[in-house]
């Protein structure tokens, strides 16, 4: 008997990615640069978040040709993004053989009320969250991996830091609560009680939690690891920089040795210009991707 798509198989896949960097790529050539640099997975996209911002309009699932091209170019896992609540985009990506699906606020939501029932799929899902309530609602729906939302495509780490600190402090709080306080906490967070109980017993989230949304430099990646991230997604940061291959390697190493400051200093030398960043307070409410989904 072989059981596919069980929680252990789906969550386990994310466990194997720990301590690693997942990079956004838009073609086979970029995917190879990412793999060569030591990425643990790539996210196949039509455009990186910074370009999605610039282009405006409706952002959808990538052309399947791109996903297939990237899958045949590398041996590391390939992820792809589906719109929030878009059942068919997710099923199509699963049928194509994507190794992981990101139900992502970077794309324009297809459903403003319901997220996908991710427990129904064989393929695992990663979802973004700003706080523990949102994180556990996604896990409750069947997400096998979490990431901070941050503010994608800005090259500004401040939102990712806010979200990671928020989740970590809420996890700590839950760990310290007595059992009779948990149901009230579940009500306040809007999170499933059983998952809070699991956090209390194990002292940590039930699935892996990566940082995402604004990582632009090796120091940013190391910062997120110090704040408790299990790994890092880098979206626009790599292929919007001057020297993508050098940047990619430096971010991978800084993620592994996030407490070695001399090393991170060396890695940061002569990298050229990082992606141009954006000040979050200058974004219009409609431009804030993190507010998509609940």
């Amino acid at each position, binding site marked *: 008997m072989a059981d596919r*798509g069980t929680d252990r*198989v789906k969550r386990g896949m994310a466990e194997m990615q*720990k301590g690693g960097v997942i990079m956004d790529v838009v073609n086979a050539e970029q995917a190879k640069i990412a793999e060569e640099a030591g*990425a643990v997975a790539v996210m196949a996209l039509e455009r990186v978040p910074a370009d999605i911002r610039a282009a405006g309009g409706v952002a959808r699932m990538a052309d399947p040709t791109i996903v297939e091209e990237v899958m045949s170019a590398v041996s590391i*896992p390939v992820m792809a993004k589906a719109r929030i609540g878009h059942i068919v985009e997710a099923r199509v990506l699963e049928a194509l053989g994507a*190794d992981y699906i990101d139900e992502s606020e970077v794309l324009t939501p297809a459903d403003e009320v319901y997220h996908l029932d991710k427990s129904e799929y064989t*393929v695992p899902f990663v979802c973004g969250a700003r706080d523990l309530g949102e994180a556990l609602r996604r896990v409750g729906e069947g997400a096998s991996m979490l990431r901070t939302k941050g503010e994608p495509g800005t090259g500004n780490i401040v939102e990712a830091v806010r979200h990671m600190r928020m989740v970590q402090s809420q996890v700590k709080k839950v760990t310290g609560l007595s059992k009779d306080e948990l149901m009230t906490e579940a009500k306040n967070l809007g999170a499933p009680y059983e998952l809070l109980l699991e956090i209390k017993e194990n002292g940590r989230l039930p699935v892996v939690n990566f940082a995402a949304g604004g990582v632009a430099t090796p120091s940013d990646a190391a910062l997120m690891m110090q704040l408790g991230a299990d790994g890092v997604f880098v979206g626009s940061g790599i292929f919007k920089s001057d020297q993508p291959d050098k940047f990619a390697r430096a971010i991978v190493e800084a993620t592994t040795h996030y407490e070695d400051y001399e090393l991170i200093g060396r890695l940061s030398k002569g990298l050229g210009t990082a992606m141009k960043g954006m000040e979050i307070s200058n974004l219009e409410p409609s431009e804030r991707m993190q507010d998509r989904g609940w």
Partner: protein
Amino acid sequence: MLKIGVLALQGAVREHVNCLHAPDVEVKIVKRVEELEKIDGLVFPGGESTTMRRLVNKYGFFEPLRQFSEAGKPIFGTCAGLILMAEDIKGETQSHLQLMDMEVQRNAFGRQRESFETKISVKDVGEDVEAVFIRAPLITGVGKEVEILSEFEGEIVAARQNHLLACSFHPELTEDARFHQYFVQMVRESKEAAADSMALT
């Protein structure tokens, strides 16, 4: 105390640490070459083998790991760890540490959607051992020195060559610590044998 290290360049490290626990075992996280000197056995965790290999090179682990094995100290590799240990990788011209006389095939079952869990019988470890296969490799050929410990649907999924142990699945993702405890026993025996030979000389 036995000191068993888990190579922590990337991958599922904490899970191995949990499975290795025993009253006489102290588990060490190994991130730097000099930390190899203090340990009696080492685990290569699951993760992405390409990533791990790059970091092995970058931090000068390549030769020290080969010497660790030549000194007869036990090594246990799961999934990506097994790929690192293999003499040959099917369809590829370059393999990694070449510690164990076997040929392996990457992603032998297909992509993530083909990943699965099951229960298998493992020689000297037990029946119904819980095994989680994630984009798992297979052992497609072994040398004379290698003993096959387990097969799944006719394919080799666990093997041992003297002090080297490898499996294509993830025992560390389950509560079933028997496979790890088998390795801990290998490390015990290796340390006792080393102490005996010291006493003789």
